[in-house]
């Protein structure tokens, strides 16, 4: 190959005596180009680096593959660590509402119920608000407000769960107990959805704090999907003599609906897994109540609450099985939601076109 044709001897660069003082060396720089320059000889002596390139490429591939590995690893370790309860209770585990660590009887139904109720409540509150915000941001907001509002939603998304929890414990709980819940009891008490002890804790408060927490993700994804709707669609509707609101409804929302559903599902996934804030305000009782003012527990919060105190292996295994269920459900939810969102933004990473 090339290296064999040119001797590899290292030759010092031929610098004239005047060249010591850098810029004053015009003569040397321009003069005598040797047949094979020192630079050429050096470059020829470098290999083709195919080994280094191959190694580098493999290293990157392995790191990328580690993302698969992580998912598989989490799955297997959760499956293996929940063997005890899976063997003892089977599928009945998810339909039994008796959670009694002292007597070794474990049923996860109260937590599934709690997770569903709080998450649906959160969606009920968050979806209209998030859609309103997204519509406002993409279609109506004056330009100067767009930046700051988007920044605020980003900020909301970045606040840790624990801080929402802290705020909920000291501000939201008293607010619900003293002002909101009495009104609900008075006017809607007959539905039995709002009855029983008014502690301020419970499903409703959890739903409210969850709504605040999932709002940003739903809103920002909805906004992304809505901006992906081509301008021509809007103009086509406007050209038919539609009002601005009709344009938004027909031209934008209808075209973006798959993606919007995707972002709502993604928000649901978040709500399912939110732990700290809910743990701090739901009251932590393994019970099923119809009243939204009652205390309960969710899948995530029971793990947070009991895991470090779980004394026997069966209790631990039961908690891990709840975690496994949470893992599988959130993976499915996220996969569906991503596919829906990608269907609209056509798979490209959000910021790149």
């Amino acid at each position: 190959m090339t290296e064999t044709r040119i001797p590899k001897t290292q030759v010092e660069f031929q610098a004239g005596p005047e060249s010591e003082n850098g810029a004053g060396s015009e003569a040397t720089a321009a003069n005598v180009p040797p047949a094979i320059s020192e630079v050429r000889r050096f470059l020829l002596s470098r290999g083709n680096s195919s080994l280094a390139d191959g190694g580098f490429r493999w290293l990157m591939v392995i790191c990328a593959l580690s993302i698969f590995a992580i998912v598989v690893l989490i799955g297997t370790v959760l499956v293996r660590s929940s063997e005890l309860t899976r063997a003892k209770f089977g599928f009945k585990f998810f339909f039994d509402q008796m959670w009694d660590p002292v007597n070794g009887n474990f049923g996860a139904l109260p937590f599934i119920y709690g997770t569903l109720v709080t998450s649906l409540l959160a969606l009920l509150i968050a979806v209209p608000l998030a859609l309103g915000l997204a519509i406002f941001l993409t279609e109506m907001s004056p330009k100067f407000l767009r930046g700051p509002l988007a920044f605020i939603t980003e900020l909301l998304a970045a606040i840790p769960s624990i801080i929402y929890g802290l705020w909920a414990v000291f501000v939201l709980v008293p607010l619900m107990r003293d002002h909101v819940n009495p009104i609900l009891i008075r006017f809607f008490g007959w539905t039995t959805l709002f009855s029983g002890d008014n502690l301020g804790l419970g499903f409703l408060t959890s739903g409210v704090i969850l709504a605040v927490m999932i709002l940003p993700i739903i809103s920002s994804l909805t906004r992304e999907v809505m901006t992906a709707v081509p301008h021509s669609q809007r103009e086509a509707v406007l050209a038919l003599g539609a009002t601005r609101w009709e344009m938004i409804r027909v031209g934008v929302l209808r075209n973006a609906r798959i993606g919007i559903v995707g972002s709502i599902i993604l928000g649901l996934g978040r709500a399912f897994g939110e732990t700290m804030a809910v743990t701090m305000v739901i009251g932590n009782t393994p019970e099923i109540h119809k009243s939204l003012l009652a205390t309960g527990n969710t899948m995530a919060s029971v793990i947070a609450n009991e895991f470090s105190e779980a004394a026997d292996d069966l209790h631990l295994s039961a908690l891990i099985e709840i975690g496994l269920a949470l893992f599988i459900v959130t993976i499915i939810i996220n996969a569906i939601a991503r596919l829906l969102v990608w269907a609209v933004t056509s798979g490209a990473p959000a910021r790149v076109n």
Partner: protein
Amino acid sequence: MASGLAILATILVILPLVAIFVYLIYMGASSLNLAFFTQIPKPVGVSGGGMANAIVGSAIILALSSILGVPIGISGGIFLAEFGRGTKLANAIRFTADVLNGVPSIVMGIAVYALVVKPQGHFSAFAGGVALGIMMIPTITRTTEEMLLMVPHAIREAALGLGVPNWRSVLSITLKTASPGIITGCMLAFARVAGETAPLIFTVLGNSFWSTNINQPIAALPLQIYVFAISPYDDWHRLAWAGALVLIILIVLAVSLVRYVTSRGVMKGAS
């Protein structure tokens, strides 16, 4: 009418944020003092004390998680943007990263408990670092990919045209050109996990005393906030607020920086 509803929704969204911030600053600032940064928590009934051990503990855990998460995350992003572009494998990895991002942090916590804590037989800062590091990987991978894709193709061609080996070109040219964006992306991932509490409960456990040993249970800021917030003592509540304020300042700084860098256009003058 419809416009009114959209505006109302906007106001309703901003309201809680303002409420949280006002309350946080009001409660936090009045409880924040030098002792908070220099002392460890005092026993119940003794007023004063601080969260110095929790701040140091968080720093140690976050350093560990960054050592794990940043290199792997960036490498994954390099694969997606430089080698895998358009391939089925890259699409699958990108998809998995997004899905992994949605896995609840509490699940990470129990997985790492079963994977690290249980076999080792004790809680440790190391286990917490593993849990948070794993959580950083998908975020960093995706931001790195996005930022690398923003580097103009002409820059890559210039490097290739000089006969620079591919690995060198990726590291010294493409990655370096995208580095402001990637660094801020890492900071965002860092800020996100800095506030994570759930995965720490059963990995690092918490510690009321000084510890810098990564093989021992260690205190962490969010964990300490949690413990103090659900306690019945006013003194501890005040410390929780102060801790929350410190945490949020860190996060707001990171988010603002990210926004500043991305809005300014990372790759200015690169075309």
